């Protein structure tokens, strides 16, 4: 009954085009910000940070990145894992080569390096579309993983072939390395996610976003109204890879601490993030959050329920968990092909009339 636009008059185009046009939505958004930045850091412990929040925040960044490319610009990519690896290795090389550099700068530069690599692998998109482009990006995935395995320079000739994040502090608090407090990990990733989500929303609401969506919906018509397909597709690849590179850098440096490329950034990662985007909703920033939350939380929830609640053996629970997650994905795609974001939109439509639907 609070959720409606009646009586909430818009008197300027700026008001009319704001992100949350309904007052209740704005309030909820501020509430989430207060919760995320004002309360959660103070109650964060190691379990919640490592099992739920940090992976959720990092996957949400990656999902927004892929959503920009696939959901907004319509270019399917299976190279997400590879691009995350580029971000991770770029961050590692920067951290070890310039120990004095502040960590946020490392992460941003890693994102920029990935953007460059993304543009390079985005070049085929000018000639090929759909499944064929997916296969071309798959080549990027395998090539990049192979490259980081085969060329010892990338892992600084370490005997194990792994990369390990050295400790770096920000304002006197460790943000990477073994002694990082849980709340610092959480807050470091949360700030990145907040800033990147805000930028993504801005990019997708204006000229750039319309160009991307025009290419997605009908590339021929887009060209006829003056959209340059070359720069538009490549800008989508660049921005998307920037996000994915940052996600990769954070995944390695803050979350894992040490990584082996095939294990951490293999093809499974590409599919996982693609599933997040599809389940969450293509072409929706909120959908990226929802998809990441769904696929991070569901396994944790099921494990707690089956092992903790029902007392099943761990190995049995692990297998049942895989089956349930798989089945749920299929059920989901049949019932709501447009993802959680669409479900949320429908719910909001209904809420506007609730509790007096007539």
């Amino acid at each position, binding site marked *: 009954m609070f959720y409606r636009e009646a009586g909430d008059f818009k008197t300027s*185009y700026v008001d009319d085009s704001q992100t949350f046009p309904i007052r209740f939505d704005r309030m909820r958004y501020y509430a989430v910000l207060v919760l995320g930045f004002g309360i959660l850091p103070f109650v964060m412990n190691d379990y919640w940070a490592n099992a739920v929040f940090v992976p959720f925040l990092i996957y949400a960044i990656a999902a927004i990145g892929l959503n920009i490319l696939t959901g907004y610009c319509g270019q399917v990519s299976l190279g997400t894992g590879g691009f995350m690896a580029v971000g991770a290795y770029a961050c590692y090389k920067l951290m070890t080569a310039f120990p004095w550099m502040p960590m946020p700068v490392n992460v941003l530069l890693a994102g920029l390096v990935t953007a460059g690599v993304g543009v390079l692998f985005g070049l085929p998109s000018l000639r090929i579309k759909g499944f064929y482009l997916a296969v071309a990006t798959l080549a990027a995935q395998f090539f990049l993983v192979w490259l980081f395995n085969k060329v010892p320079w990338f892992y600084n000739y370490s005997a194990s072939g792994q990369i390990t994040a050295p400790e770096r502090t920000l304002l006197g608090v460790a943000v990477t390395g073994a002694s990082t407090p849980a709340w610092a990990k959480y807050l470091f990733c949360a700030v990145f996610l907040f800033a990147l989500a805000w930028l993504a929303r801005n990019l997708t609401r204006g000229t750039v976003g*319309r160009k991307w969506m025009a290419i997605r919906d009908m590339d021929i018509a887009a060209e006829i109204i003056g959209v340059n397909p070359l720069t538009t597709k490549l800008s989508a690849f660049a921005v998307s890879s920037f996000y994915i590179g940052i996600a990769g850098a954070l995944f390695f440096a803050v979350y894992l601490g040490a990584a082996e490329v095939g294990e951490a950034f293999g093809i499974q990662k590409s599919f996982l993030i693609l599933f997040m985007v599809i389940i969450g909703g293509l072409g929706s920033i909120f959908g990226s959050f929802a998809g990441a939350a769904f696929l991070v939380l569901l396994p944790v929830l099921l494990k707690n329920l089956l092992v903790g609640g029902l007392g099943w053996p761990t190995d049995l629970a692990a297998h049942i968990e895989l089956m349930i997650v798989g089945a749920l994905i299929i059920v989901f795609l049949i019932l709501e092909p447009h993802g959680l974001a669409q479900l949320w939109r429908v719910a909001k439509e209904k809420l506007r009339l609730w509790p007096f639907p007539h």
Partner: protein
Amino acid sequence: MNAMNPEGYVTADGRKIGGVLMEMKNITLRFGGVKAITDISFDIREGEIRAIIGPNGAGKSSMLNVISGFYVPQEGEVWFHGKKRAPMKPYQVAQQGIARTFQNIALFEGMSVLDNIMTGRLTLMKSGLMDQAMWWGRAQREETEHREKVEKIIDFLEIQHIRKTPVGRLPYGLKKRVELARALAAEPKLLLLDEPMAGMNVEEKEDMCRFILDVNDEFGTTITLIEHDMGVVMDLSDRVVVMDYGKKIGDGPPDEVRSNPDVINAYLGVSHD
């Protein structure tokens, strides 16, 4: 009335038509061995409503595609604003001020009506990726300015009520109107309409005719259209090009074209006796 006067002419209803805006010189277009267009020349004057008619397969749409840069003719020259146009990509043609609509609607189905029309102004919007990412300031100011222009077009075409509806949900007649709105939003110097009235009922056709005349009248836009409905063509247009089998068989004001024996033959067939 003298249509060949280089300074322009005055139409039957008293509108002043300017000089040559676009000139096609000896255009020939081939697809492999098939000649779609054979040695066609004609001009389009500023402020004019110019129709291209002809039976199915005459090469009308191919001609429009040559103008909008989709096809590059093997022979011949396209002159625009008194300058010869080098072969260019469709998006470069759009940036020169030529907008078009399609025979089969080519809207962006996943976007709202408002966003679709805003895409028409992309060539006029200048803020870059960084401005857009920060939003506040230049990008927002620009967005608001262009939104005002777009709202005028929305008012003009009477589609206020569907502003925020996704295009995919609209009926056919409204989609045609939104497509016209998107083309108008670019403030084109030359507007190309490929069968704007195909598949419409009488009432929708009348609306569309009214909009086309109003666009020409209020914005002074030069319009080139392809249409099969002869009544519409004869009423709307100032001059008509008639094509058949890729050749030009007639060119002139509607009355003149209507009495041209070649045109009658092409449309009605010829008696062989």
